[in-house]
Every structure is written in structure tokens, then in C-alpha cells.
């Protein structure tokens, strides 16, 4: 019998099959957003006697119910918040034991002693909009990150990284544990220089 060539399979419907699969995946999946501003809530147990904090070491940020921003009881635009927070944290007005030798601020006597003492207190109203609150949080975190970046590049000029880049690499699950060990001391050092002391007051009631 003569050898017959195998008939070619018609691939014309391949596109239809692929489209079907494509549409299935488009419908059942989402592009996940998996990043955001991380915060730590304070534990509930009541502190019996709260430590006495000097007025000048507190930087009050209030967002009222009309989403207006008040910093140290004065109206401020959101664009100026980062600079104001940096100026406050980096002031270094303390003397003697409380002096801050790495601060580059004005050393104003009426502002914070040193970054370790400086506390940012954020207060919002129950009717504040969430996105404005996030914008304010973002700017306050940015103030800390800017200062940490500055000190990190000053202390570790050989690494060629900023603090935020180094922290990102440290958090990346693909980074080897060897590298993490190498990054950790430098990160901890800068974190101790500018500890993130952001306290949130209970919101005020509107009625």
C-alpha cells in the first residue's frame, strides 16, 4: 500500500482557544496592590504615669473635619509640611547631654532638643477624609526618610545606597541572609539616630 502523508491538523481554532483562556484569566484575576505605608499601633494597656514631655519637643499636626491642616496651631499647606517636619526633627536645640552633634538644623531654643526627644503628634477628626490623612502620613514618613537618607549616605559613602534603597533591599525576600546581616547594623544605626516617634491621638468627636 502506498504510504499516505499524515493530514495536517487544522490550527485555525488555536486563536479561539487562546482567546478563551485569555478572557478567563482577565475576568478571574486582579493586579494586586501589595504595598503601602506600614504603621504600628500602640498596645492598649494604659500607661500608669505618662512621661513628662516638654512642649517644645512635640510637633502637633492636626487635620480638621474640612481637611485643613494645622501645624503647631497655625494653618499650613500640605506642600510645606515635609520641610516643617524636617526643620523640627533636625533642630537639635539641646545642650550638654541632650546635644545632637549630627543635626544640621537651626538649634532653635524653642524647638526640639534632639531627634530622640522629638515627637510628632498627629490628630485627626472623625470626618477627616482618609486620602488626606494618608497624604499627611506620607509626608511625615517622608520627612523621617529624608533625614535618614542624609545620614545614611554620610555614614556609609562606600555603599552607594540611600537609606530607603537599603531598607527596600533588606525587606526584599530575594536578598540573601548574608547581605541582610551586612545591611542590618548600618540601618539600625540610622534608625536610632532618627527614631520614628509618631504618635496618634484619639480623634476628636465632631458633635
Amino acid at each position: 500500500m502506498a504510504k499516505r502523508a499524515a493530514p495536517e491538523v487544522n490550527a485555525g481554532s488555536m486563536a479561539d482557544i487562546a482567546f478563551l483562556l485569555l478572557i478567563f484569566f482577565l475576568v478571574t484575576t486582579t493586579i494586586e496592590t501589595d504595598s503601602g505605608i506600614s504603621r504600628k499601633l500602640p498596645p492598649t494597656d494604659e500607661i500608669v504615669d505618662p512621661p513628662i514631655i516638654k512642649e517644645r519637643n512635640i510637633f502637633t499636626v492636626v487635620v480638621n473635619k474640612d481637611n485643613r491642616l494645622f501645624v503647631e496651631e497655625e494653618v499650613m499647606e500640605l506642600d510645606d509640611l515635609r520641610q516643617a517636619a524636617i526643620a523640627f526633627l533636625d533642630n537639635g536645640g539641646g545642650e550638654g547631654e541632650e546635644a545632637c552633634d549630627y543635626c544640621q538644623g537651626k538649634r532653635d531654643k524653642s524647638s526640639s532638643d534632639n531627634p530622640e526627644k522629638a515627637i510628632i503628634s498627629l490628630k485627626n477628626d472623625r470626618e477627616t477624609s482618609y486620602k488626606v490623612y494618608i497624604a499627611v502620613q506620607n509626608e511625615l514618613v517622608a520627612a523621617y526618610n529624608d533625614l535618614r537618607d542624609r545620614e545614611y549616605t554620610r555614614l556609609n559613602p562606600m555603599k552607594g545606597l540611600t537609606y530607603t534603597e537599603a531598607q527596600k533591599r533588606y525587606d526584599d525576600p530575594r536578598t540573601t541572609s548574608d547581605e541582610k546581616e551586612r545591611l542590618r547594623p548600618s540601618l539600625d544605626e540610622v534608625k536610632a539616630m532618627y527614631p520614628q516617634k509618631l504618635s496618634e491621638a484619639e480623634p476628636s468627636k465632631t458633635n
Partner: protein
Amino acid sequence: MSKFKKKKGGELPAISTASLPDIVFMLLFFFMVATVMRDSTLMVTNSLPAADQIQKLDKKDRVMYIYAGKPSSRYQDKYGSQARIQLNDKFASVGDVAAFVLAERASKRQELQNVLTTALKVDGETNMGLITDIKQELRKVNALKINYTTRVGDYTQNMK
């Protein structure tokens, strides 16, 4: 001259669709890699606010999600247009948050139970009152690590 033979007929040749499957498969693989299966249907509007000082969330098995926002349009006649909390696939009230967190925690492996993060996926238009209530509930059950999930973007987008 035979070189300049008149072309026979004026019809256009059919465009070959032989590479169409390849193109579609390429798209398919892109979507398979870049997306994840949704595990709960969103019942609230969820346009997240933008921020740029962000940290990546931990691995997915260490995160529990709390959604909040206005009910989406097809649930509005039943649930109203006030911002609500969504836990798993159901609308919930503030009082249910603590129980939800405890149940989620119990369902995780022992070694992960202390490193859980709560991701708050809250619509930008929500009032802070609701979020504060959620945070108070989380404090009660000692779920202190939270993450405000945001889009990547400049903060000025939030002010519009």
C-alpha cells in the same frame, strides 16, 4: 514582454492570521504572570489613595485584608451608601473585626501567628472615623502591625 506581465485580478491577498494565536498566547502569559486570582469579590468601592513612601507587604500568607468603603452601586439599595467594612465576602460591622482577626490568626500556622500584618484597603473617600474604630478594634486583639495599602503615586493626587 513577459517581465511586465499584467497582474491577474485586482483582489487583495488575504492577511495571514497564522501568528494570531502567538500574539494571544503572549497576552495570556503576561496576564497569568502579572496578576493573581481574586480570593474575595469586592463589594465596596475601592479606589486606594496614593503615597510614595511605601513599603512592600510581607508574603501573602502573613497578611489579612480588611476592606472598607462605600458599598458598590449594585449593593447600595440594600446596604445604603454609608461606608462599610467588608470582611471576606460579607459586609460587617466594627464589632466583627476582632472576631475576624482572631479567626484569621487561628487559621494560620503556629509560627506565623505572631508576625501577621493587617492590610487596610480603604477607599480614599472614607471618613477617618470608621478607620479609627477599626484601629481600636485591632488594638483590642493585639493585631498591632498594620499597613495602609496605597497606590504608588504622588500625594498631591489625593487632594483633588
